[in-house]
């Protein structure tokens, strides 16, 4: 009988894994992607939408158009996984059986966990949020802007720094800079978790008069006073508040008892197998691995998992291992960017921000739909 491979989630990781698997296995396996919407979102684009540099239309595609014809696509909400019977039950009542399961379920944001966030805080972690923020910025005529994170881990660690630098750039261009105060609230004593990147970014922030509020872990928002307070007991006043909402794993992980307290799946750092169930693999945001939650992580992990499962189906010993590879761009405004490339053993050594990296990021944004989901980039 053909091996049944089920992939939960049609984002970058799930789509790429599916396409690589049918490429390797042809008709020796049935590969099914289960996705609640059937629409694929290019999430790195939200940042550009919020800043008015792109429109939302560019960010979504019909998942079917990105999948190889041999991949089955099922539009269902996965409600519960039974790792012993090896089945996934859908909210509609149906179910699907698997020999290998790939959890590519991503993460979800839970702004409701921060008192006062909803209504008072803006965000760019959803298309709706990005569009709303874009309109707020359009109406903005000067004032105090605070940017911060409300929980860790969150997707795309450089995003708050990027947003801060790009927003300051925008305010300058619009002639609003001298009427505005821009402050980045950081959970640490530096702008960014990666020290080497902080060393590049902080002088830029200083030069542009962007304030850095250190050890400010956002606790709650008080919309009536226009104040955000930190766990450390400090307060900061805002006219425009932009926060990265807290993130959690998907509800199907919790409902199936497969995750930790944050809903993240306990995952082997090299084989990407579930720590308890060897036929379950996890890629992308859904893992509990202490690395960046980003599209590139999902991309690199998808190839590894697809290769390992393909080997197993063919009766060979799997040899591909994940070594923690992550690659991301960090926009620094003024049409410049830098890049962070690292793995478990090698911390990033980012180059000086330059126009070329900004151009490379834009090239990537444009090429995404035609290259990444199809596996045309290793």
């Amino acid at each position, binding site marked *: 009988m053909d091996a049944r491979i089920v992939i939960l989630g049609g984002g970058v990781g799930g789509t790429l894994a599916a396409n690589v698997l049918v490429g390797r296995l042809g008709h020796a396996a049935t590969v099914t992607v289960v996705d609640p919407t059937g629409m694929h979102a290019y999430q790195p684009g939200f940042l550009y939408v919020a800043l008015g540099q792109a429109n939302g239309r560019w960010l979504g595609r019909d998942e079917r158009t990105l999948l190889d014809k041999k991949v089955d696509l099922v539009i269902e909400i996965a409600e519960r996984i039974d790792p012993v019977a090896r089945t996934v039950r859908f909210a509609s009542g149906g179910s699907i059986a698997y020999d290998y399961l790939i959890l590519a379920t991503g993460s979800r944001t839970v702004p409701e966990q921060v008192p006062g966030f909803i209504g008072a805080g803006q965000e760019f972690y959803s298309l709706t949020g990005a569009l709303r923020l874009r309109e707020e910025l359009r109406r903005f005529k000067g004032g105090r802007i605070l940017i911060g994170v409300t929980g*860790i*881990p969150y997707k795309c660690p450089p995003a708050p720094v990027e947003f801060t630098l790009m927003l300051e750039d925008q305010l300058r261009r619009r002639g609003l800079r001298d009427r505005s105060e821009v402050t980045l609230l950081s*959970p*640490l*004593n530096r702008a960014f*978790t990666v*020290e080497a990147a902080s060393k590049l970014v902080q002088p830029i922030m200083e030069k542009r008069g962007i304030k850095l509020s*250190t*050890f400010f*872990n956002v*606790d709650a928002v008080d919309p009536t006073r226009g104040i955000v307070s930190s*766990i*450390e*007991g400090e307060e900061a006043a805002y006219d425009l508040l932009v926060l990265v909402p807290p993130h959690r794993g998907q509800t199907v992980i919790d409902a199936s008892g497969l995750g930790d307290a944050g809903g993240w799946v306990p995952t082997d750092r090299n084989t990407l197998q579930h720590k308890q169930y060897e036929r379950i693999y996890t890629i992308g945001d859904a893992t509990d691995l*202490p*690395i960046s939650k980003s599209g590139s992580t999902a991309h690199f992990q998808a190839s590894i998992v697809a290769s390992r499962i393909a080997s197993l189906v063919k009766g060979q010993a799997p040899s591909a291992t994940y070594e923690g590879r992550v690659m991301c761009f960090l926009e620094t405004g003024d049409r410049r960017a830098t890049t962070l490339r690292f793995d478990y053993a090698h911390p990033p050594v980012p180059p000086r921000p330059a126009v070329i990296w900004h151009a490379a990021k834009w090239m990537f944004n444009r090429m995404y739909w035609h290259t990444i989901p199809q596996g045309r980039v290793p």
Partner: protein
Amino acid sequence: MTRLIEEVHQLDVKGLQCPMPIVKTAKAMKELASGDVMQVIATDPGSVKDFAAWSKATGNELLESTAIDGVFRFVLRKR
């Protein structure tokens, strides 16, 4: 009434990467009363510098900072 043995709160952040140890510590410390003592165990080497800086910035005293075989132990007293 005096306490004969000072209660030491415990926090295990082993395996967590920067900035998780600081964030978890800040959260845990918030629940304590002024003067309470907490021991934090971490494995992220970056946490040595981070805890020293955090203590200085927040006024929570860092009573001890030790490293044995890649395990870092911090003892903090809440301001």
